[in-house]
């Protein structure tokens, strides 16, 4: 079966801001369209958990009335945004897809990043589906809107699926081992994992506190950066920001882009490697210098990220393991049991490995004078629901969760910012994702590169 683009004519945040501003679009009209689309399609995609149509329409109407007043509105006034159900949104439960939390009280206040974004004028559409406790890549019961027999990836699967399906214009995700980037790749949208520690995690249910970060998912790099600014409370910078990302004529002159060998080329779907080669050629034509390089500690970084996440997750959920383990799903329970019993010397060995990985990747960037590295986001496109193993051409196989996090986890160990951008389709017409990995705290420089690539990669 060939997949179908669920939303062939997507409205971007940038376009919506412009059209709401010139009144060729009303918030009421936009909201009505999105709610209709949710009603018509979300029964099969299941990206949304808690959407309150009457409340949202009232908000939209108030929004339109406000636009008739002479006072200037805020930069993302009336833009509908989804919130992953690991993140507190005032007045909504934060269930985290955990049975033990189904009766939890509604959050009394917003998570810090939500609170900051609220100042930009967005409308929060509701909560999106997450993998249980954000610990995994399936995001059940959500499905991939390109092909509902396939998974959307996770753990921010609902957020990526909602954006891809055209039921909101952007969404919050969280990322500990790839949870923003994997669903962005599998659903054909754009995601940013910011530098670790750059955005507040206050009001976000933890998975692995030494690697957790929230981040935005949207349709374009510029939209993603607008949300990133809003998450920091810097919404006043958004109007000037749009000019940083011209709609044509982007250049990569003077940029040095690294292409990693070995670890990032093994057991990868050939069409994904071909997409990366196409991207590299396009970047070269835009003036970038392409540098072949190697990072010998990639596997080490992957192990460190994976095992640290297991141990921290084991500690966070340990009480439930002793009191009500039957309320945990199998995927979470396996992680927590293992994380809880691993000895302290494993923890210290992995902390050491993580530091080592940070230092060795910084040396690669320094020695090669790199601005960014390009790599596949995932080794395969969206697996089928229930496909627990990925089989490779050489006869080997790999657990689906381990396969999908293989190229994302290392960057959680190093804490670097990563842009996941769509890079065409495979032969089943499923989205392919590529990652651009930058230097810590260089999100804007990375966004410039991602924007230039975005402009040419879909040709």
């Amino acid at each position: 079966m060939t997949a179908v683009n669920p939303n062939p004519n997507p409205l971007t945040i940038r376009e919506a801001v412009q059209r709401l501003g010139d009144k060729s679009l009303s918030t009421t009209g936009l909201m009505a369209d999105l709610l209709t689309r949710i009603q018509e399609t979300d029964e099969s995609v299941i990206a949304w958990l808690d959407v309150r149509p009457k409340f949202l329409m009232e908000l939209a109407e108030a929004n339109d009335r406000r636009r008739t007043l002479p006072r200037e509105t805020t930069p993302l006034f009336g833009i509908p945004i989804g919130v992953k159900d690991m993140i507190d949104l005032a007045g909504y439960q934060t269930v985290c897809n955990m049975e033990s939390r189904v009766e939890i009280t509604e959050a009394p206040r917003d998570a810090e990043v939500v609170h900051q974004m609220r100042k930009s004028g967005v409308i929060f559409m509701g909560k999106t589906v997450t993998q249980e406790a954000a610990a995994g890549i399936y995001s059940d019961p959500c499905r991939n809107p390109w092909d509902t027999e396939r998974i959307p990836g996770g753990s921010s699967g609902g957020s990526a699926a909602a954006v891809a399906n055209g039921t909101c214009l952007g969404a919050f995700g969280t990322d500990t081992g790839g949870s923003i980037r994997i669903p962005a790749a599998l659903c054909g949208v754009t995601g940013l994992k910011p530098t670790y520690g750059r955005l507040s995690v206050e009001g976000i249910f933890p998975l692995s506190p030494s690697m957790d970060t929230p981040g935005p998912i949207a349709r374009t790099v510029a939209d993603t950066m607008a949300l990133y600014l809003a998450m920091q409370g810097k919404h006043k910078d958004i109007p000037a920001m749009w000019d940083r990302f011209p709609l044509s004529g982007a250049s990569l002159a003077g940029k040095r882009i690294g292409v990693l060998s070995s670890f990032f080329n093994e057991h990868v779907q050939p069409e994904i490697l071909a997409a990366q080669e196409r991207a590299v050629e396009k970047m070269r034509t835009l003036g970038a210098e392409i540098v072949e390089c190697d990072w010998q500690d990639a596997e080490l970084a992957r192990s460190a990220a994976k095992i640290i996440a297991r141990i921290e997750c084991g500690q966070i959920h340990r009480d439930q393991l002793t009191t009500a383990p039957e309320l945990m799903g199998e995927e979470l329970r396996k992680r927590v049991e293992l994380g809880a019993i691993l000895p302290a010397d494993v923890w210290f060995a992995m902390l050491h490995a993580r530091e080592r990985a940070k230092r060795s990747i910084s040396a690669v960037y320094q020695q090669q004078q790199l601005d960014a590295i390009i790599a596949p986001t995932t080794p395969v496109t969206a697996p089928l629901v229930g496909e627990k193993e990925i089989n490779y051409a050489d006869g080997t196989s790999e657990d689906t969760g381990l396969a999908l996090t293989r190229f994302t986890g290392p960057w959680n160990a190093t804490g670097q910012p990563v842009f996941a951008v769509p890079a065409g389709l495979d032969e089943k017409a499923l989205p392919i994702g590529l990652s651009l990995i930058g230097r810590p705290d260089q999100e804007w420089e990375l966004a410039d590169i991602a924007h230039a690539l975005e402009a040419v990669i879909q040709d």
Partner: protein
Amino acid sequence: MSDSVSHVREVAQSLGISIQEDRLEQLASAYEATLKEVEATRQSQTPLPTPSPYDAGWEVKR
């Protein structure tokens, strides 16, 4: 594997975690695989490149 199963059972009990018998083997297998992976990371660590990245850090390019 039986040694691992006993060890995992013992550790879990000492932490007050009750693991059902039918889950122990799978957990012991994951436990052993993790210890092997940790050992492999210890073996695979190559000497740090020169100049030391302790000095290079994450200086902004150019």
